[in-house]
């Protein structure tokens, strides 16, 4: 689907992306994680052809992306500013424009989504609230039906109900029309259930590319009476702790061997999957 080789982006003396080799097979949902300034937006911008790489190449189904309409017309990037048209345009104008410019744009689906997000065609883009603008941008992104659709913090300002609607619609449309999604987000726990594979960028470098399940196996959550849990995790790498009354949940990095798992069983401790966010924080250097 999309590959990069030695992809590099520099802004003057600053290197935003160090030489990056990436291979993202099609028809999957990828989660792109990284701290502020990690290079996520820059990476998505070059993948979409919004920016020319300083060095290296981006190929989409084997063809270059930058200034190649055969590629760019099949890629959609919705950015965090939510601007998909001129602020003076009403939503109907923007949707009409998208339908003229994008070969696969589904106007019927856009109209359906518009209703579900509670937006009307006569509203002016520039007059929408932050959350409404994000919702409208998501409508445009999903209805583009682009084989590679990327959302860069596209949910900014949206309330919890609309974010849930976004997730539900993305999954529903993904199953009905399989294609590749890349979701860049800081709402890791909220969006990680959507991910099939996780990419973590850190300081302009690809720190990790892993299936979600494999990532989760890199840690374990241990829940039980506080004192018992403390004794059990002694000597292990603790990523986070949460206490509720006498009960404590601790996330540890690394798998548990059979002996420890048996021990957990004897002490009636509950072992569970690790929170992706805890692993992410640990892998990217921990809490400052």
């Amino acid at each position: 689907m999309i590959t990069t080789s030695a992809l590099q982006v520099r802004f003057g003396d600053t290197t935003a992306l160090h030489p990056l080799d990436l291979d993202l097979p099609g028809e999957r949902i990828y989660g792109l994680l990284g701290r502020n300034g990690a290079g996520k937006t820059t990476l998505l911008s070059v993948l979409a052809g919004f920016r020319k790489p300083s060095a290296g190449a981006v190929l989409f189904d084997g063809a270059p992306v930058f200034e190649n309409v055969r590629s760019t017309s099949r890629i959609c990037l919705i950015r965090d500013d939510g601007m998909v048209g001129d602020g003076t345009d009403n939503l109907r104008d923007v949707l009409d424009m998208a339908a003229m410019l994008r070969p696969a744009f589904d106007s019927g689906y856009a109209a359906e989504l518009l209703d579900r997000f509670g937006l009307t065609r006569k509203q002016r883009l520039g007059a929408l609230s932050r959350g409404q603008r994000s919702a409208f941008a998501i409508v445009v992104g999903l209805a583009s039906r682009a084989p590679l659709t990327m959302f860069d913090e596209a949910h900014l300002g949206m309330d919890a109900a609309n974010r849930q609607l976004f997730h539900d619609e993305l999954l529903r449309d993904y199953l009905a029309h399989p294609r590749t999604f890349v979701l860049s987000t800081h709402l890791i726990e909220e969006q990680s259930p959507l991910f099939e594979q996780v990419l973590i960028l850190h300081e302009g470098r690809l720190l990790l590319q892993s299936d979600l399940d494999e990532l989760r196996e890199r840690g374990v959550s241990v829940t039980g009476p506080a004192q018992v849990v403390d004794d059990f995790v002694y000597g292990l790498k603790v990523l986070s702790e949460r206490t509720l009354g006498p009960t404590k949940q601790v996330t540890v990095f690394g798998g548990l061997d059979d002996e420890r798992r048996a021990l957990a069983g004897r002490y009636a401790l509950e072992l569970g999957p690790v929170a992706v966010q805890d692993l992410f924080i640990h892998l990217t250097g921990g809490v400052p």
Partner: protein
Amino acid sequence: MRRFPIARFLLSTHLPFLVMVLAGSYLLVAVILGVAVLVSGPASVSAVDVAGQVLHWLAVGYGYGAPALLATVVVHGRTRREFVAQHPVYQLVAAVVLAALITGVYAAEAALYSAAGWTQAMQPDRPFAAGDYPMIFLANVSMLSIALVTGSFAGVAVYRRDGAGALALVPAAGLLVYGGAVHGFFSLPFAQQGLPMAVTLPAVAAGWVLLWACAREVPLGNRVPA
């Protein structure tokens, strides 16, 4: 895939809007003329010609909005190369259509003035006289096409947010003075030669080359979320 999607989009949406705005503006001019005649007596100069002095700057301002269009079409999967090829074509068509409308308004005003017994005098530096409709049309096509492409080039140059933005002001100013002179907005000798298209073609070509140079690799900026 449909051919020339950017030009088709602009011709089907922006051009009708511009025609409506221009027609509405001339209706306003007619109302102002009516009031002026009631207050001051018979008209002695062409109201359309006086009002037309702002067209040059309005066209520059509209062209200056090109970066927003460029960014929008790239967001919707098109390329800068397509934009640079199709946007100037739209501008030329728009210049012809708007110039035809302007010429028609001059003719309508001439008929009105003739019926009322007034004199339709033009501004002193205009390269056309009252009733010289071919030259009125050509001069306006010339002025509009130069102003639109120059505004676009300057807008995209500034959008780049690098040294090109400041440097672009020099050739942009030259092209605007050139275009203004052709239309008689400025008093320059070559504007009186009666060959507006002869100076238009190289000016538009220069504006297009400069637009291409600025736009061909321009990165899309990200607006700061509110």
